[in-house]
Structure formats: C-alpha cells, structure tokens
C-alpha cells in the first residue's frame, strides 16, 4: 500500500482532516509524524537555515522524521487560499525550502494551491486536487469522490471548531462524539484569548501546553479559530488597509472582534522567534488592546524557551488581570 507522510506542522492544524481523509479514501496509508519533541526540534534546527522562524524549523524536523518511513511526503505549496490574499512567503516557499535542505527525501507531493484569482469550484483547483491524488491512483472520478468525502469530514471539523473545540482536541475527535473542551471552565471567572498562528498555539510542545494550563486554572480560552468567520471579516475591515494575509486577517480580525465585543479579559499573543508577519500583527493588536484597556502580553517562543520562564510570565499576567479586576470593581462602586 502506498504510504503518504503528513508532517505535523505548519498548516497541519488547519487541514489535517481534509488531507488525511482524502488520501485514505484513495486507499493510501497516511502516516503522521508524532507530536513535536526534542529530537524533531533538534533535527529541524540542524537541517533548516539558521535565520528561519521556529515553526518552519520544526516542520523540517517533522519531514526529516518521516523521510524514510513513507513513499511520498505531502507538502502542498499553499500560495493563496482566499481571493486577493496570500500566505506568508515562507509558506509559499515551504516545499522548496524543504527539498533543498534535507537530503534523501522521498518524492514530495507539492501541489500548487493558488486561489488568489480562482475559487474552490474552479477547474484550476480541481486540477490541483487531481495532481495531489494521482500519486496514489490515476483515476479521476475516484479522486473526485475521495475529495468529496474528505470535504465532508472537514466541514465537521470546522463545525467543531466553531463550537469552541480547540483544534488540538478537534483533530483527535473530529469523527467521534463532540465534547466541549472548555466544559471544565464553564463557570470561568476569566477568559483569555490566546492568539497567534495555529502552529504556535496548537503545537503543545513548542508552547509548553499553555492552553491546557490556562484551562486547568479555570480560565476560558479563546483562539482565533473559534471566532465566527463573518465576525472576522467584519472586524478586520476596520483596518485602514486591506489585510492581504489570510492568517493575518484571521488573527487580527478575531482579536479585534473579541476586544470590541468585550468578550475577553486579556490577550496572550504567542509568537515565535523570527516570525516576520507577527512583527506587524502584534503591533496592530497591541495598539487596539491598549486603546480599549485590555491587558496584553507577548510570549515569544524560541529554541531555548524554558517551561519555567513561560509559566512565570503567564502567572504574572493572570495576577495582573486579577488585580485589575479588583481595581475596576472599586472604580465602579465609587461611581
């Protein structure tokens, strides 16, 4: 049976159900690299160019892990997933970077996905789907059907997300019963938005489990993926210039939405060292948060980030928010 490797990194957290289901429907065996760990990080750091951002380095590690366990590795070249928008330059060049940085790779399936001028129903997109599937089977109607099925379960996944399930969990259970992860913290007295690129907020190794830690403290956690699409579109339009990165728009739009609608008590921006896009997004969100008096903190993850350091920063942030709450209370009673 043909084995397709899917590295657990970068856009994995957005599209895994779609990709996996697609290849399995076609009769391939899907092999996913394990959750990030020390070896994966180290091998990524070794093979990737020094100057690169952490998530891309880790991604290299995942590819390295898979390379002699599978027949193909699936690294689509995702240029644009929405009209007139782009992904980060490094996502645009991801398969190329990997190809020239890691030796002895199996063939890479690097289908171009470019919807800058096309839609999901265009023939160009259909061709891209065929390109991806033809390594497993050269039958276009089978490929079409497989994609249809995959698309359905992907919709289920998106539904879970919109119901407040965090992708890390949703990926595990997108076809099982539906549990609200934030159930424990239903009676929360505080809600925090953890915002950033999906591969920073959902890679539990890189961010030292920050989301679970917050939830265990009885805090309700919100992430960009949980904010309704229309809200994101509406609030990102507040920017003085069209936001041309799809992820940038999601990140800024969701944060603006929660801030404006007063649905969060604080914001933690999870960035990774060397991220070019974040330098812009952080500035935009921090400015808005400051304007509306919402506490904001930035955590930058890098190869050396220690768990203790992150924990202390998070503790301090929560304490600060609690104090603020009290102060707010005082003010309102005085009024």
């Amino acid at each position, binding site marked *: 049976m043909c084995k397709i490797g899917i590295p657990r990194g970068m856009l994995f957290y957005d599209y895994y159900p779609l990709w996996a289901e697609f290849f399995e429907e076609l009769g391939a065996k899907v092999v996913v690299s394990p959750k990030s760990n020390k070896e994966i990080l180290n091998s990524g750091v070794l093979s990737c160019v020094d100057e690169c951002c952490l998530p891309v380095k880790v991604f290299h590690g995942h590819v390295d892990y898979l390379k002699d366990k599978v027949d193909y590795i699936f690294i689509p070249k995702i240029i644009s997933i929405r009209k007139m*928008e782009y992904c*980060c330059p490094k996502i645009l*060049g991801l398969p*190329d*970077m990997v190809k020239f940085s890691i030796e002895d790779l199996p063939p890479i399936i690097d289908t171009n996905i470019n919807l800058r001028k096309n839609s999901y129903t265009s023939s160009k997109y259909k061709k891209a789907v065929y390109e991806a599937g033809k390594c497993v089977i050269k039958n276009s109607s089978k490929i079409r059907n497989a994609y249809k099925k995959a698309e359905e379960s992907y919709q289920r996944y998106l539904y879970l997300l919109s119901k407040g399930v965090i992708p890390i969990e949703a990926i595990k259970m997108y076809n099982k019963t539906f549990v609200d992860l934030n159930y424990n913290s239903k009676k929360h007295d505080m809600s925090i938005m953890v915002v950033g690129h999906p591969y920073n907020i959902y890679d539990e190794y890189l961010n030292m489990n920050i989301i679970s830690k917050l939830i265990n403290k009885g805090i309700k956690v919100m992430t960009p993926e949980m904010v309704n699409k229309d809200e994101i579109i509406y609030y990102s339009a507040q920017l003085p210039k069209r936001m*041309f990165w799809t992820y940038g728009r999601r990140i800024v739009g969701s944060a603006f939405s929660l801030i404006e609608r007063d649905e969060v008590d604080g914001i933690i921006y999870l960035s990774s060292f*060397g991220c*070019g896009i974040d330098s812009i997004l952080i*500035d935009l969100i921090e400015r808005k948060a400051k304007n509306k008096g919402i506490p904001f903190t930035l955590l930058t993850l890098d190869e050396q980030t220690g768990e203790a350091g992150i924990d202390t920063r998070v503790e301090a942030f929560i304490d600060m928010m609690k104090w603020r709450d009290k102060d707010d209370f005082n003010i309102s009673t005085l009024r």
Partner: protein
Amino acid sequence: MILTFPHLGNVYIAGKAFLEELGQEVVPPPRCSSRTLEIGTKYSPENICLPFKVNIGNYIESIEKGADTILITGSCGPCRFGYYSVLEQNILWDLGYEVDMIVFDPISEGLDQLKEGLSKALNINSYKDVIKAGKLGWKLIQKADYLTQLSNEKRAYAIDSYEVDAIMEEYYKNIENTFGAEKMLKLMDEVEYSLKNIPIDKSKNPIRIGIVGEIYTIIEPFVNLEVEKKLGHMGVYVEKSLTPTKWVKHHVTSFPFGSKEENMKYQLAKPYLSTLVGGHGRETVGSAVYYAKQGFDGVIQLLPLNCMPEIVAKSILPQVQKDCNIPIMTLVLDEMTGEAGYLTRLEAFVDLLMRRREERKVGELLFGC
C-alpha cells in the same frame, strides 16, 4: 505642502527633480546616517525588517527639516512591505507628528485610488505636465544608475580607486544645490566626463561578483555598508541584480507583462523555485544562476535579518552553488552589523575567489582542460 519620501539609493535624485519640475516643494531626507538608523530603531517594532527602521529614521529627519507630507509606494502582499504604511503612520502620529502619508498602491487595487493619491500629491494642472516630468524623471533614474554602475566599474580598473570616491562625493554634495531636471542632467554629464577620465589599467582582470538579495538592501549603500565601494577598492568588479532602473522597467514601463530581464530570471530560477515567494526571493535565485552563467567568480546575497523571501532563497542557494559551481556567500544585515567583521568576511570571500581562479589556471596549464 512640503513633500518628502524615504531613501532608496540614488532614487532621491530623480524624485526630487521630478517633483520640482511639477512645481512642488521637496525636502529629501538627509543622507542615511547612523543617526537615521538610531532614530528608526528606537521607534520601530523590534522585529520589523531593517528597511522599515531606516524609513522611519528618514521620515523623522525630513520632518525636522520641514516636510509635512510623505510619499511612498505600496504593495499588497505577500511581503511585509505592503503593510509598512499603516504601521509607519501610527508611529508618526503617536510621536505627535501631524504628517500626511500618501501611498501609491499597485493599479490592481483600484485606479481611482491611485489617481486620487496623484492629484493630492502633485497639484496637477494637466496630465501632460505629469507625463513630461515623468519622462524626465525616468531619464534621471537611468542616468543616476548608469553613473553608479560606471563608478563601480572604474573602481575595479582605476590606478587609484579613491579618485572615484572623490568624484562621487563631490557629485552627491552638488546634488543638494541643484534644482530641476535640466540642471541635474547637466551635473550628471559632468560627473560622467570626470569618471571617464580617470586613469585606468586596462590589463587588470578583476574578480567579478554579482550582488543579489533583497532590493532595498542592494540599492541603499548605507544599509549594505557600502558593499560596492568596499569591493571596488579591493579591485573587484561589482554588478547588482536589482537597480531602480530595472525596477521601473519591470513594474512600470513594461506593465503588465514585466521586463525581459526579470522574466528571464524567473526562467532561470524555475528548476529551484517555480512560484513567487514575495519580495525578490525568486529573483535572488534566478540572478545567482544568471551570474554563474555569465562567468562571474562569485555571488553575494544580501539578507536583512528576518527577511522572509530571502530566507527562502537562502535555503535554496546551496544547491545553486553546487549545480553551477560558483561560490555564494550570504551577508545578514541588521542594525548591529559591525563594520570590521563585515570587511573581514568580504576580504576572505575575495581571497577565496582569487585562489579558485589561480587553481583553475594551474589546472588548465597542467591538464589542458
């Protein structure tokens, strides 16, 4: 209304004359200096790319000299440059500078917007005047680039390369007191004449290096620590893969098809990088192949720290180096880059290239291949 714009190598010469032709008052920013960078670094987000920081420094120094309106070009992705204007405007407002920023986005964002910006910036009486001034501006850009390239060439061949510097220094000083396109062109003719009269040694066979990388870093000598000049004094002939002339050819005069040269470079890059990655990542790869094919001795890539497209290119260049058998060195630049270390790396690279040439010569002598 007093206009200004950020620095980009010698573009200010044409920019200044173009706006003056249209009867506008212009204050070009003072030449980039360590003060410019200091100011820029202080007020910019820490992890933003280097060009942004220098831009902010330029604006503030121009505002200090009386400018109240900033003209810049924009883009709409995929690189950060497209969002510069929003952040820059915020920063200047936060600092209490009441300046206007007029951004010229590409036509694909809407022609009306572009027209509105133009009429706001240029108090247009007739488009004929604009076109006339535009043509003069274009001439100036080409001429300025020609002079820069001529000076690079002369440095490699001159008996005393510092003579070139003296002429160029004089030229830059005179620009400040020259107004209007006509006079500027006259000044340039004089400079050309003096450069051509520098005594040279024709028997020299200089090492040839192609410079590739991020556009701003290639074009703005302050940001690349005057790499052309430094190499020139080491007797190296330098060519740059990107110049304002090439940019205009690709984006304006051959719109919407793109210039021949750039399209050729896309073709050369294709085996390595078949699609765009924003900025000039693809051009970097293509140009490296191009210089190898042209028989250059080496290639230097200029990468401003954290520059996304250039990082993609950097991970591909080792393969080009192998396939085309040409040494490629990457120089990472940021506000901390030290002069001494930089010079050492350049010298070591030039040494390596000279040694390779020697070895090849010996090889040819011994084995006739």
